[in-house]
């Protein structure tokens, strides 16, 4: 069983072939991915208010294979609340995705707080884009700020991309029960000279344990080969590997209740 918690759907401004649900299913079949949790690119990069509906129209053909993240933009609070209310009622939507950097709002700031309050009320896990390089860039969604949110709420908060600098992220999420991270883009150690590094998953498991790490590919931006390669090159026990590949996601997203 493999659950990919970081999948996108829609057009990207890079030379990438895949964009619709059928492309995702084809790629998932090639890599034996059973379930992908998908967020609409339109909502993240193109500020489209109807992104969740458009994505649902596409993924509803594959209810057992593709699950949805509701994407909301905190710069439009009323619309964000409406989207959360509407799509949380659809069982195929099992989480929320936010991209603070692209919305230019700190994740722990007042604009996002109503969104996180609502997600907690709805008991939805939130996947937060996070990619920090040193101390200057992209601080609006750095792991420390995401931790501020996680401390205020009880629902699961997932730091995407291992936060970029996985060592920094591990230190932050280690002692916060409802914080997790996914391994998409995870071969990049953003703060180091050689950014793509062997052994990062092993290091993370040693630091925070396998229970807090989720498998994510970031396809179709990134090729699933990257995350599968990282897993293949790790030296994990069978049990830890299972936790990362699907058991943690199954627990956090309550997929037992909603899928099987």
């Amino acid at each position, binding site marked *: 069983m493999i659950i990919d918690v970081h999948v996108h759907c829609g057009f990207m401004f*890079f030379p990438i072939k895949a964009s619709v649900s059928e492309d995702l299913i084809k790629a998932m079949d090639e890599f034996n991915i059973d379930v992908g949790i998908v967020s609409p690119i339109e909502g993240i990069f193109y500020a489209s208010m109807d992104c969740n509906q458009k994505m649902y129209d596409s993924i509803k053909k594959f209810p057992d294979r593709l699950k949805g993240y509701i994407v909301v933009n905190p710069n439009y609070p009323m619309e964000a609340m409406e989207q959360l209310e509407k799509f949380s009622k659809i069982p195929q939507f099992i989480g929320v995705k936010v991209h603070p950097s692209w919305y230019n709002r700190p994740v722990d700031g007042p604009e996002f707080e109503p969104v996180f309050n609502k997600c907690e009320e709805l008991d939805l896990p939130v996947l937060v884009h996070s990619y920090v390089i040193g101390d200057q860039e992209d601080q609006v969604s750095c792991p420390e700020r995401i931790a501020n949110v996680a401390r205020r709420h009880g629902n699961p908060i997932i730091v995407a991309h291992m936060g970029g600098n996985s060592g920094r992220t591990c230190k932050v999420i280690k002692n916060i029960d409802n914080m997790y991270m996914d391994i998409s883009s995870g071969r990049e150690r953003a703060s180091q000279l*050689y950014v793509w590094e062997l052994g990062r998953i092993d290091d993370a498991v040693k630091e925070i344990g396998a229970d807090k790490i989720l498998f994510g590919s970031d396809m179709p931006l990134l*090729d699933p080969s990257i995350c599968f390669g990282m897993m293949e090159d790790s030296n994990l026990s069978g049990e830890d590997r299972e936790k990362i590949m699907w058991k943690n996601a199954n627990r956090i997203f309550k997929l037992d209740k909603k899928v099987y």
Partner: protein
Amino acid sequence: MIFDSNVLFGFELQYNKDLSMEKVLELMESRNIDKALITNIRCRYSDFLRGNDETAAIVGKYPDKFLGMISFNMSQFIDIENEVDRGLKDRKFAGIRIFNTSTGFISEWGGGIDSYSMRKVLKQVSGTKMPVFIEGGFPFITVGTLAHEFPEVPIIASGVGYGNMGEAILAAQANENLFLEISTLDTMDGIDVLVKYTSADRIIFGTGLPYNSPSCEMLMVKSAHISEQDKEKIFSGNLLGILHERSENK
């Protein structure tokens, strides 16, 4: 056969990392990588004379597994010509490796590879078919310009990823002597797209081990929607072709 164009070893100055030959050999063995172009990492940090000595020693010890890539920090200036000459004469070296930004002079002082020093090196090897491997981190417009100015030098450029794939493709389309190494490639279907727009003859397998996870790029090639013949070219055929031409010119 799998021939890795991008392997490093030695002492890592900037952080604690096992780059020992034991680690390199273990990774190659376990991932079925048969041969590699190898460079001592000291060359990145200026101590390139010692680094090249260590590269030569390793190639001497494992002649069936490795070929060396001679390297240097161009800020040294006075020793570079000698080292290039050494690379041309010593059969332990198959080519030249140019490191990226951390060697100081190259980007921070000298305007990157778009420099007099780089052109001096390329002029020195022009006509010898000696390949020059350029690490990622330099714009493909610059790499392509150099390839255009020195059409007889096979240039293997690393650094292609989703953000600069279009530039890499256009640079390769414009210059038949430019090959794209894939250790930084992460784009979904990236191999398919590169093959479609440049041809499988222009793609070179490389991992960047032992820094990088070698299985990532191996899986990317294996899972690409291209023919087995094209995969063979990428895994080893193209690099063997470049090295064969070089050996014919020695």
